[in-house]
């Protein structure tokens, strides 16, 4: 009698255990598909990024410009009414996460970055004919120190180091005989150590036998300021910067 009872309880427990994750799975599946109401009226075969990629924002905030992608068909003409889903690593959220393309074939979403500083690989996906089409893009989230660096760089560095002019600020890049490196030039800047970058900022270009057009900032910026600027340079770098040192994880 005792053994039979326990077998029955065991079965009940097992059944309950099995049902619980099943329902959870179902619930999750249900909530992961908010686009159930969206009925695609057309399908495209290609995805193109229109705008909103490669932005730089602070961690946890919504990027200034929305991410806009366009769905095209085989002929390269825009497809309205196609379903586009946006995906990203955990922490990133999209508003909306799935949307139908508008009359000009474009899908727009507001991107909120995760709370960890770094690069966020995002993707847009549209169910094409036969197989789905994806498009990858990248956004950069700056932590506190990197953002302080970006604010300082904006004031002291970007007028020369950023070749792009904007309506409110004209770049000085073209006026310089020796061209400064843009902060995204990973191929060059990744090879310069933190110590060397610090001395160039501290003492000016001639400190490392480089151009005197780069003035010294050692009496203007504090040590944490310079550290912040370097953190910002490393965050922008393309290809990404790999910090030197032992690889700790064994794996």
């Amino acid at each position, binding site marked *: 009698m005792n053994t039979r009872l326990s077998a029955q309880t065991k079965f009940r427990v097992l059944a309950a255990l099995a049902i619980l994750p099943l329902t959870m799975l179902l619930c999750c599946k249900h909530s992961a598909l908010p686009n159930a109401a969206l009925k695609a009226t057309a399908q495209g075969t290609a995805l193109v990024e229109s705008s909103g990629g490669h932005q730089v924002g602070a961690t946890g*905030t919504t990027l200034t410009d929305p991410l806009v992608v366009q769905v095209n068909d085989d002929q390269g003409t825009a497809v309205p009414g196609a379903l586009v889903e946006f995906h990203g690593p955990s922490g990133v959220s999209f508003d909306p996460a799935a949307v139908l393309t508008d009359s000009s074939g474009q899908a727009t979403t507001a991107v909120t970055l995760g709370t960890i500083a770094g690069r966020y690989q995002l993707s847009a996906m549209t169910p094409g004919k036969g197989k789905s089409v994806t498009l990858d893009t990248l956004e950069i989230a700056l932590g506190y120190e990197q953002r302080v660096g970006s604010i300082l760089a904006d004031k002291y560095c970007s007028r*020369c180091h950023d070749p792009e002019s904007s309506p409110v600020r004209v770049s000085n890049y073209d006026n310089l005989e020796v061209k400064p490196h843009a902060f995204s030039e990973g191929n060059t800047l990744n090879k310069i150590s933190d110590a060397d970058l610090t001395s160039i900022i501290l003492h000016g270009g001639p400190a490392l036998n480089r151009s005197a057009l780069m*003035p010294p900032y050692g009496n203007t910026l504090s040590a944490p300021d310079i550290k912040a600027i370097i953190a910002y340079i490393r965050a922008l770098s393309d290809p990404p910067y790999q910090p030197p040192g032992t690889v*700790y994880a064994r794996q």
Partner: protein
Amino acid sequence: MQPIRKYLSSVWQALFGDPVRAFGVVSLILLLALAIAPAKEHFSQWHSYQRKYLGLIRDRGDAISLRRRFEPGIHQIWLPELGVVDRCTTCHLGLKEASLSDVTQQPFRKHPVVPHSLDAFGCVICHGGQGQATTVVEAHHSERAGEEPILPTRYIESGCGQCHQNSLPGTPQLNLGRTMLSRYGCVHCHAVTRPDGSKVAATDHPPSLVHIADKTTREWLFSWLKDPQAYAASTTMPNFKLSDADASDISAYLVNSSSPKAGDTAADAKPAANADPAAGPSLYGESFCASCHSVQNAAGNLVGGDLGPELTRIGNKAKPEWLAAWLQNPRVYDSTTPMPHYRFAPQQIATLVAFLQTKSDSDYGSGVHLDAATPQQIAHGRKLIVELGCAACHEINGVQKPENFAPDLSAIGSKPLAQIVFLPGMEHSLPTYIAAKIRQPRAFGSSVKMPQFTLSAAQTDALTTALLALTARGRSMPDNLRVAAVPETNYQPAGPAGKLITELACFSCHRFNGRGGEMAPDLSWEGSSVQRQWLTNFLHNPNTLRPSLIRRMPRFNLSDSDNKELTDYILTVYQSPAIDADLVPAATNSADVVEHGRQLFYSKYACQSCHIIDTKTDKGYIGPTLTQVGSRLTAGWLYAWLKNPQALRPSTTEPNQNLSDEDAHALTAFLMSLKGSGGQGAKR
């Protein structure tokens, strides 16, 4: 009943039948009871995180040193003077481990670099949440009375704002939010007192409506009240979502109560000079109206400054007679306006009025026809004005400015969740509530008086951040940890020159002795900086020193006597004690020294990357052009500037090059030798 009793008695017999067995059973129960506490600890959440952490560091190269720094058990940061008891570090074990910077798994991530030490401030001061809790849910998501959920990262800057009342370089969002509190008129209705007792003051300039009928029509007022953003997309006036009848009644009261101002109406206008339509755009451009006023271009983008109102449809609004009177002298209509009193000639005024009248939209307000208002409607309009609190911002005849019209927000960041009525389906947290209230105040009920503001998502986040910074904790912080806001001084220059400085609204753009705007250079020490002849010429015809600047100083058409008054005052009063006024004039420097200075300029210090000396070869245009700097600046100022630019203007981008005295002297001699062509001086 019988079998149960029999069963129980058999159990009793089996357990406590004889003393030895009873002793064994009691011991077992005692042992189990004693095991409850260690078992509870063993199976607690924080313990499992500590085990996970040990597992995480086991395979790392620096496992030994990481394990040495690991302490088992509950950790606590206890700071009695701050009221901090934070046990967060019990689970967040990697916060201070620099080598864990590659770990993204929570709760083991390294804390990002911040200016404060965790041991000195703890965690909840910035992040919110329950510091004493030792479970994830209780620490992060508690909604119980008096407790607060953890702050979302997007509002994290509000933590800084509890102690730092000044503007910090690393908190742009908080700074923007605080500016908006003052600029969007929030503080006209809501009082906001900082922890040190000072009040947040408004920086906007809501126009007085006591002479409004001189300026515009009732029809325009009606359209404006219905939808301010339809007239000017950039206006900070919110939308009160008025019905047609209400908007009509309010406009009726405003026009009806308006008292005429001498000089504003067509009847007392001077015989108008002939306008020159072709000269309009160039006069508007030359007067640098765009430095303060913006206009929408064909693409729908606003071009121009935001100090004054947008002028895209000014022709729909302003009556020409009023516009002429305003351009003649804005201070007659509004004695505190930030608009300078340009000394325009009658012909120029006529030209500008005609030009501004063309800035209109024939579709705007075309369908508005208002019947003459009855006394009841006018009285109803007044009632609405009182109810909606219009007089909190605008001066209105016959309506008193209400005191404490809306709730005080000085501690809104600590508002208990129990006091908040959330909308159905809304996340129960303070940041969500504040953001929703800013975004759509009227969604919280039809009795809510707060109007609808037109803000971008980033602006809403910024304003929410600034409001969340107004916490009870911020008010109870020890004084030595509080950083006070830098208050605007009430400096007022004296005498006839002081009157001129007020009339020309120099304070709107320039800063003097801690008061004034940020758009143009601080002039507190201008008298030590520039030469008399240059200043006289500049005030007559300001031409920019920086070719790449868009916003520029306008020409005020000063008379010679006014110019002399102002020049004398600036040169006498705005002197820095740090500048040596008697520094050897450049003329006595030998040609050798000048040549040495030139070499230093071009080779050692490469100043040409930012400055132009020879317009043919030099191209840098970050700093001002120096082609005639020798006739502009004084030798004393130049020398002091070269030695330490930040000492004279803390916000300048020119780096301090730590020059030796000899180098600074040679450069000063060289720069003072650059007198320019003299063309500018000869003109006048």
